[in-house]
């Protein structure tokens, strides 16, 4: 709304954007915070917080229902967010932008509504060994329901997809390929343009799990030509509990509703129900209105900073982080793909990742430790879990220096 739509002057350097994030201006355990867990959840800029607060203070009402002023304002803001997101990912039209609670719901929606009706015992679903549990379990469920088979494309020991093997697995029985844009555990960026082209040449539709792609690079779903693109608000500096499913209009149009309820209908009687048009057919019940409005503000904010500049700065930071980490005695980097975004997983000596996490927290450094909701990836590398530092454009070299100092301290304690 008003504040979100105000044009924001572009900062001289991307790193200056740190000032826009209130949570990054505090001390943790007497150290300035070094937040290196944006792949789990990114911090939220003031403009998003203010946009949500403005809506709750002045415009709160249900959407698509009332004939009074507040409901009009709420509806305009909610639908305005759809336009913002449509532009952000360059969808062909706004009815291809379905709001969900996050990537997980977006993928479940496709599994149940697009795949389930057409799947039988001889069909296959193709995923990869790199996937987050959210891009594994929904497919396992639909396979159990239909008798279809889940096929998993392998990775190499750098954490890169074995592309030729993936192409070989694209057989006639495959009904969908579901693949991460960027691996959350390893940071590997998959060559999704090429993969989509190859899949389409074999008539296989493609869903991209973009949860870790959207925060780090400009996304153009038309250029990608993917059939579905799923992502979450809270990974792209918006609120938790928000997300998007992009789908090609013709595919969404042909799909049955995922959930029944209010707002997704045109007419209901006990003899039958006519469903609403796209995208409302997939948005049953009162949505997360304030969250979606905040998500719209996040998208506009990111555009004002500029996704290409964000990608450039993050790549510079990732190189710096990898360079500093690999010089630490006793470190083992996990995930060393040639093309990566934002993430470095690692182990230090035989210190368990959770012990590292606690010691680092003591020095103001927040990292993720554990299996990162990607247990098959951990199994592949023969480890129960890793420590993972992940970057966003608000990070700087001082954050990385603080991480390295804290790791040296952990080595002292466990020496």
């Amino acid at each position, binding site marked *: 709304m008003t504040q979100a739509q105000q044009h924001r002057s572009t900062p001289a350097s991307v790193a200056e954007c740190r000032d826009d994030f209130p949570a990054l201006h505090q001390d943790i355990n007497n150290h300035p915070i070094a937040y290196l867990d944006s792949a789990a959840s990114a911090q939220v800029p003031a403009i998003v917080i203010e946009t949500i607060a403005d809506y709750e203070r002045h415009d709160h009402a249900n959407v698509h229902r009332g004939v009074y002023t507040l409901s009009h304002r709420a509806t305009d803001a909610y639908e305005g967010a759809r336009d913002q997101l449509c532009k952000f990912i360059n969808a062909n039209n706004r009815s291809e932008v379905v709001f969900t609670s996050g990537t997980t719901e977006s993928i479940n929606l496709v599994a149940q509504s697009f795949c389930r009706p057409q799947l039988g015992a001889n069909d296959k679903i193709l995923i990869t060994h790199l996937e987050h549990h959210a891009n594994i379990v929904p497919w396992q469920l639909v396979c159990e329901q239909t008798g279809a088979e889940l096929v998993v494309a392998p990775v190499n020991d750098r954490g890169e997809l074995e592309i030729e093997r993936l192409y070989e697995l694209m057989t006639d029985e495959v009904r969908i390929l579901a693949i991460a844009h960027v691996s959350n555990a390893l940071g590997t960026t998959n060559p999704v343009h090429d993969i989509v082209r190859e899949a389409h040449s074999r008539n296989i539709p493609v869903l991209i799990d973009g949860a870790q792609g959207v925060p780090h690079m400009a996304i153009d779903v038309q250029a990608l030509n993917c059939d579905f693109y799923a992502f979450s608000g809270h990974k792209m500096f918006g609120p938790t509990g928000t997300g998007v499913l992009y789908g090609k209009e013709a595919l969404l149009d042909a799909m049955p509703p995922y959930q029944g309820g209010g707002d997704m209908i045109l007419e209901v009687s006990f003899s039958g129900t006519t469903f609403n048009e796209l995208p409302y057919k997939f948005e049953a019940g009162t949505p997360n209105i304030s969250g979606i409005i905040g998500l719209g503000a996040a998208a506009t904010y990111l555009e004002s900073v500029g996704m290409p500049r964000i990608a450039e700065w993050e790549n510079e930071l990732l190189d710096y982080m990898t360079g500093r980490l690999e010089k630490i005695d006793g470190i083992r980097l996990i995930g060393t793909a040639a093309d990566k975004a934002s993430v470095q997983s690692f182990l230090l000596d035989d210190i368990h990742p*959770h012990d590292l996490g606690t010691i680092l927290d*003591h020095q103001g450094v927040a990292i993720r430790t*554990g299996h990162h909701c990607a247990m098959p990836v951990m199994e592949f590398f023969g480890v129960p879990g890793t420590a993972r530092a992940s970057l966003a454009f608000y990070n700087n070299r001082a954050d990385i220096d603080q991480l390295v100092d804290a790791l040296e301290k952990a080595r002292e304690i466990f020496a």
Partner: protein
Amino acid sequence: MIAADMESDDVRDLYRELILDHARSPRHFGKLERTTHSAEGINPLCGDKLKLYLDVDSADTILAAAFEGSGCAISVASASLLTDAIVGLDAAQAIRYFDAVTSHLRGDAEVQEHLPVDLGKLRALEGVRDYPSRVKCATLAWHALHSALCHDTTPATTE
């Protein structure tokens, strides 16, 4: 700098020398010649996973205890200390230990005033009380002990 030094002292209160020693060289690690009771403990947050083995005689006395598995320093040290502490106790005493240790580590004030047993070396674990997410690591083996003695067949979790 002074503040930073205080911090590292602070974190050393969690990672005391006794804890690090038991984590590096866990006691009674492996299987027993005879196992009468066993249980698995899983901490899904951390991925800590251990299996506890007990040899309990007909008079309900714990003759031997051992464990296998992997986990963070806190969970391994806690399991190691457990196997040291419970040998020679009868099952009822061991359950009282379980109650005392878990309530002490959770910082449950009411129970702490009336601890039924002397915790001894187990007090080295009490640094976790300042780390809510790590209390589960420290109590995992104890939940497995409870399951084993109560013949609970589902893996113990700290959830």
